[in-house]
């Protein structure tokens, strides 16, 4: 006893006081931007990397990528100095860097030539060629004219010379669709444009077509064809440019051991070269037929007078590599081998050439060739003019995580060589001599993300339980034991907090990293030593598992973006294209089974469906399984409402058509127990199917299980799919074609079945889990009628629940149709022209020209307090919803739509827009209410919280979730609930990745940052002291009263 108060009470008070000091909750506030959210800027997989020396000390790396991005990378760190993201249909076909300028040619039929300032990324000037009916697919090339700022380019179906500041070309040569021109070779006064000639009936074989043009006047000197059987882009063709000798094309026919050399602009002579002269060893003809050639650099400044190329061939089943240099004396042409690499240095993955600095005035500047050998690890050599490598290095990495090396580039920093290697999986790593670890790396695999799934992680307190489980799992059987373990864990936290000086001397969040783990080194980040297996108390830290079209599956922490694991999936060495990722077994605290993700994709070899089941925590194949190639190609994949009880795995349905066009539903896992689990589901499985955009109907199917248990047993032994019977066919009216279908994204939960109105009556929501929104294109540009049709249909019966039409609206690749369903609300966005194309449309179209967002709320009835009589929902009841709609003017064009999700859906749902201007905008649900009054709100409407209607959706900067980050190319938005009802995780991905969390209804279940924990402690202590002092006095008084 201490003054009448027990020690236990004091200890309890102190524990409560100290406990209140520990971190309790998180919230999103301006000062937390960049701490609780994270952004990964990406560029895509480089298709070409050009090193460029600004001066003797400064070097830049310029890359164009398969995600249509031009980027300047820091050679020292790999970070993006600047980037320019082009349109989704604007493939970058050419990149040249010269005199501080970067030249790009992009687009297909509509071609854009742009010159950028290489230092800042600013546009210096540009030229756009409108679409041309004669455009040949694949055409496009551009080159700087030497000693001039002019550019010669193949745009559309023309060859043009462009000069800065001029709006029209200096000259334009129509190419008359004679070939797909892909290469421009410039000499002093001549431009050669070379392409793949258009096959004709008379001459169906591929061959090259050359147009020789006077560079000054633009007059065509001659046109001719050569190299029958050859294409411009082939590994048996190289272009060589020499200041002294002119320009040449070297090629080898497919089944010929002779190499041919053609001088551009001359039809005669044409030289023949034999292998023996080149490699100076005897070769068998079969080996000669394996030889291939690589251009190592086409910059005349580097190739100087004696252009070089690399040739590989087989000798005694080993790949040999030589560097060949061209000489000419009179009419005699000679190829000399200047370097031959040892067999173990054979170029397998790629090669490149670079000079320490670009010095056109010094043709004898030292040049180097990099040879990369990629087996399990990468070993590389840099050669100059001798057979002995000047620099060597290794790079240790696993092909199972990033795929095989596919190319390499050499550049110099401060005179020291650096090698950039790229893998099929999207890894770009910078290597230095003498080190097996990369200087830096960029992981661009996720710039091709196609799908993602959130995986819940166990809370950290259970780490003690896991430790206990590892030693003696039986101790976890008792809830008391688990409770004690949690207390022990909490006590440890308090002790560590006290020993860290009450948090004042602890590592800052930045030092520790938002993931809660210490900052990793480059090597650790490349190959994490330990995966992330523990989450947090609030469900903020989950694993986001991405599938990509480049074959990579990767798991990242939603906090900080730390990579947990990576897996590269390949079929016969070729990356598979992943379409869907499903979490098929979740984390279960007391289970010894690891969580699983099932990845569904397509083989690039056979086109068939591939499935892989991975351990979601480690990325390893689950249960010694491996990538499975199924004997069909799926048309649709979705989660089935069944769990295989044998291994507690969620079933996946794979819809496909057999050669007889019969529809089937395959299941995964394809086991007897899974089949029984599927057929044990009481409700039949319905699904809809269409032939994609452009199709004219939509069909509904029901999966059919075998009638009896015996049939099911025999089925499980012989088959892996169920027949699907067609239930309905929804034919679109004549002149309409499908744009897209939209269903619910995952299972929906609803907190409120109705909408409480201002007069306390209830408008009941129409909640149909089988609702599908179908968007159609009406008419076309040729007929002049345009429009979008919207159908809401029931997936089970094919019933049409609602239909409407938007005249004078249209959908293109640049102006896509977006839609999302959430609860009883459908939101869609499209482009609407301001001036209707037809008189008929004009009569009924609004004058609004821009992006229109339409909201349709579905209710069971237009009368409050009225709802469907039947207790259980049935699609066959054919309850037609009462649909309330409204249209708004979207603030900016959007590329993706999403909604936030919370655990119980008590919080409102924000609508999240991925804007084309690289912003992630979150707008409140309230703004999209179609019942917003279009006049002054009545008292009831005010009580309901309805704000008066205003057509424009305001772009409030305070509601931009991405803050100052430019999140480029947002294509998908996903949301996941946390353990706090107020808070939703939001992920946006496409080219970039961005994660954040948001609280649509405010952080009502969290302490505000202004909450004073010190005051709480002081108050608690004051109360404790008051108790200590007042307790004896009160007792004494009571005693005195008793004696009185």
């Amino acid at each position, binding site marked *: 006893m201490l003054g009448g108060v027990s020690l236990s009470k004091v200890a309890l008070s102190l524990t409560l006081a100290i406990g209140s000091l520990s971190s309790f909750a998180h919230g999103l506030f301006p000062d937390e931007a960049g701490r609780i959210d994270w952004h990964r800027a990406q560029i895509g997989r480089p298709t070409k990397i050009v090193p460029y020396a600004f001066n003797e000390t400064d070097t830049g790396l310029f890359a164009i990528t398969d995600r249509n991005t031009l980027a300047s990378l820091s050679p020292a760190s790999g970070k993006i100095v600047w980037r320019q993201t082009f349109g989704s249909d604007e493939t970058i076909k050419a990149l040249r860097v010269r005199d501080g300028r970067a030249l790009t040619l992009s687009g297909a039929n509509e071609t854009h030539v742009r010159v950028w300032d290489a230092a800042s990324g600013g546009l210096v000037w540009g030229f756009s060629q409108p679409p041309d009916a004669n455009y040949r697919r694949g055409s496009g090339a551009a080159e700087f004219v030497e000693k001039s700022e002019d550019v010669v380019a193949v745009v559309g179906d023309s060859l043009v010379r462009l000069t800065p500041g001029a709006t029209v070309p200096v000259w334009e040569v129509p190419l008359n669709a004679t070939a797909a021109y892909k290469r421009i070779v410039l000499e002093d006064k001549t431009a050669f444009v070379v392409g793949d000639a258009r096959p004709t009936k008379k001459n169906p074989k591929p061959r090259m077509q050359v147009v020789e043009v006077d560079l000054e006047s633009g007059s065509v000197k001659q046109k001719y064809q050569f190299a029958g059987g050859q294409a411009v882009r082939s590994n048996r063709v190289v272009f060589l440019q020499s200041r002294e000798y002119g320009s040449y094309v070297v090629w080898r026919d497919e089944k010929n051991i002779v190499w041919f050399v053609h001088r551009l602009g001359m039809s005669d002579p044409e030289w023949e070269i034999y292998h023996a002269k080149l490699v100076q060893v005897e070769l068998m003809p079969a080996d000669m037929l394996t030889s291939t050639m690589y251009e190592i650099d086409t910059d005349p400044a580097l190739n100087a007078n004696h252009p070089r190329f690399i040739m590989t061939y087989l000798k005694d089943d080993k790949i040999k590599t030589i560097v060949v240099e061209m000489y000419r004396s009179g009419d005699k042409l000679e190829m000399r081998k200047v370097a031959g690499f040892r067999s173990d240095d054979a170029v397998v993955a790629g090669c490149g050439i670079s000079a320490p600095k670009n010095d056109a005035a010094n043709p004898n500047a030292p040049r180097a060739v990099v040879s990369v050998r990629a087996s399990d690890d990468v070993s590389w050599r840099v050669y100059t003019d001798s057979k002995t490598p000047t620099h060597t290095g290794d790079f240790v990495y696993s092909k199972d995580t990033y795929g095989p090396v596919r190319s390499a580039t050499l550049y110099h920093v401060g005179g020291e060589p650096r090698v950039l290697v790229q893998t099929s999986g999207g890894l770009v790593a910078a290597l230095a001599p003498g080190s097996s670890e990369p200087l830096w790396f960029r992981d661009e695999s996720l710039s091709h993300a196609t799908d993602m799934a959130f995986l819940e992680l166990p809370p950290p307190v259970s780490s003690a339980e896991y430790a206990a489980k590892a030693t003696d799992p039986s101790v976890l059987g008792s809830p008391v034991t688990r409770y004690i373990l949690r207390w022990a864990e909490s006590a440890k936290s308090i002790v560590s907090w006290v020993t860290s000086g009450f948090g004042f001397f602890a590592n800052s969040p930045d030092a520790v990293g938002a993931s809660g783990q210490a900052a990793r080194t480059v090597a650790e980040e490349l190959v994490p030593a330990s995966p992330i297996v523990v989450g947090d108390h609030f469900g903020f830290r989950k694993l986001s598992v991405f599938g990509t079209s480049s074959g990579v599956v990767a798991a990242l922490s939603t906090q900080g973006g730390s990579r947990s694991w990576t897996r590269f999936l390949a079929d016969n060495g070729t990356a598979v294209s992943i379409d869907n990722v499903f979490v098929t077994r979740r984390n279960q605290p007391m289970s010894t089974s690891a969580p699983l993700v099932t990845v569904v994709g397509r083989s690039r070899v056979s086109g068939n469906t591939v499935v892989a089941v991975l351990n979601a925590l480690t990325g390893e194949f689950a249960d010694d399984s491996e990538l499975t190639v199924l004997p069909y190609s799926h048309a649709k994949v979705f989660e089935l409402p069944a769990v295989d009880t044998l291994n507690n795995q969620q079933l996946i349905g794979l819809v496909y058509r057999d050669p007889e066009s019969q529809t089937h539903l395959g299941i995964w896992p394809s086991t007897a127990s899974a089949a029984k689990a599927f057929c044990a589901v009481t409700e039949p499985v319905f699904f809809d199917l269409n032939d994609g955009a452009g199709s004219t*109907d939509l069909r509904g199917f029901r999966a059919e299980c075998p009638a009896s248990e015996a049939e099911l047993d025999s089925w499980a032994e012989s088959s892996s799919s169920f027949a699907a*019977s*067609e*239930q*309905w*066919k*929804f*034919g*679109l*009216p*004549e*002149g*309409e074609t499908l744009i897209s279908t939209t269903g619910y994204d995952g299972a929906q939960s609803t907190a409120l079945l109705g909408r409480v109105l201002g007069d306390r009556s209830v408008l009941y929501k129409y909640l149909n889990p089988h609702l599908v929104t179908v968007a159609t294109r*009406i*008419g076309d540009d040729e007929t002049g*009628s345009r*429009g979008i*049709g*919207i159908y809401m249909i029931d997936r089970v*019966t*094919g*019933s*049409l629940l609602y*239909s*409407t*039409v*938007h*005249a004078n609206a249209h959908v293109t690749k640049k102006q896509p149709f977006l839609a999302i369903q959430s609860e009883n609300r459908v939101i869609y966005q499209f482009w*609407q022209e301001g001036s209707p194309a*037809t008189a*008929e*449309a004009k*009569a*009924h*179209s*609004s*004058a*609004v020209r821009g992006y*229109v967002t*339409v909201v349709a709320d579905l209710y069971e009835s237009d009368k409050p307090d009225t709802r469907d009589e*039947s207790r*259980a929902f*049935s699609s*066959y*009841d*054919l309850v*037609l919803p009462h649909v309330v*709609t*409204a*249209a*708004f*003017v979207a603030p900016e064009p959007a590329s993706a739509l999403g909604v936030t999700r919370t655990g119980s859906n008590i919080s409102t749902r924000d609508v999240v827009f991925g804007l084309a201007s690289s912003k992630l905008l979150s707008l409140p649900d309230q703004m999209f209410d*179609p019942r917003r009054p*279009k006049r002054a709100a009545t008292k009831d409407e005010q009580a309901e919280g309805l704000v008066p*209607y*205003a*057509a*424009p959706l305001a772009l409030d900067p305070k509601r931009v979730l991405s803050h100052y980050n430019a999140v480029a190319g947002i294509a998908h938005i996903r949301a996941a609930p946390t353990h706090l009802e107020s808070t939703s995780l939001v992920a946006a991905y496409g080219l970039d990745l961005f994660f954040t969390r948001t609280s649509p209804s405010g952080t009502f279940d969290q302490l505000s940052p202004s909450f004073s924990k010190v005051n709480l402690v002081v108050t608690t202590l004051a109360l404790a002291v008051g108790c200590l002092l007042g307790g004896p006095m009160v007792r004494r008084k009571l005693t005195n009263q008793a004696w009185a």
Partner: protein
Amino acid sequence: MRLLNPSALLPLLVLGALAGVCAEPLVPDTLSVYDNLNSDQFTQRGELVLSDPAEYSPVGLQNPPVIKYSTVANWTTDNSMYAVLLQSHKTDAQLVLTVPRCRLNGDQAIKERFVVHAAADGGLLHVDYTAGKAANCKDAHAVPETPKFTTDVVVKRRVQGPTPELAQAPSIDLTTGKEKTPEPQKSFLVKYWYYIVPVMLLLLLGGGEEPQQEGNARR
């Protein structure tokens, strides 16, 4: 369940999508209604008249026309489903609509409903059908042989979607660059008093001399 493309039902199913909000009357047609309640073939039991308003009427024929399953294209016999076949009088095109047969179990008075979706120009867009109740599927009784159908026909029109309703744009005074304040509405007299007053004055002042002239003339 629907087994035929409704667009095949009538050639009048034309592109009416871009037509206006002023819905046209339903293009008239009559659809014979058959069902497979008691036999392995479709037996006619009524007619669905597409007009304004659309309505269903039973036909009390002694030997109603029948259509054999085998003659119905794309129809796969499924005895678990109660099927209704609609046949157009204009084109003879057929449409099969189904619901689970168990929904009719033990129900002598069956409520059924046809939902006819029309394009804005009155053309037929789609037809949906329901009958019975889901609760009947838990009923052990069989489907009665001669149930009484209470038929409801609903016509739904495809309407023009909403468009943003913009507020009137403010009028800017080009000389000052400021928003023009709307002028207050003036009455007719205030607006045109300078025409009216002279006319009135002329009438009042000039009108007194005429009787005098008349008087002089008489004299």
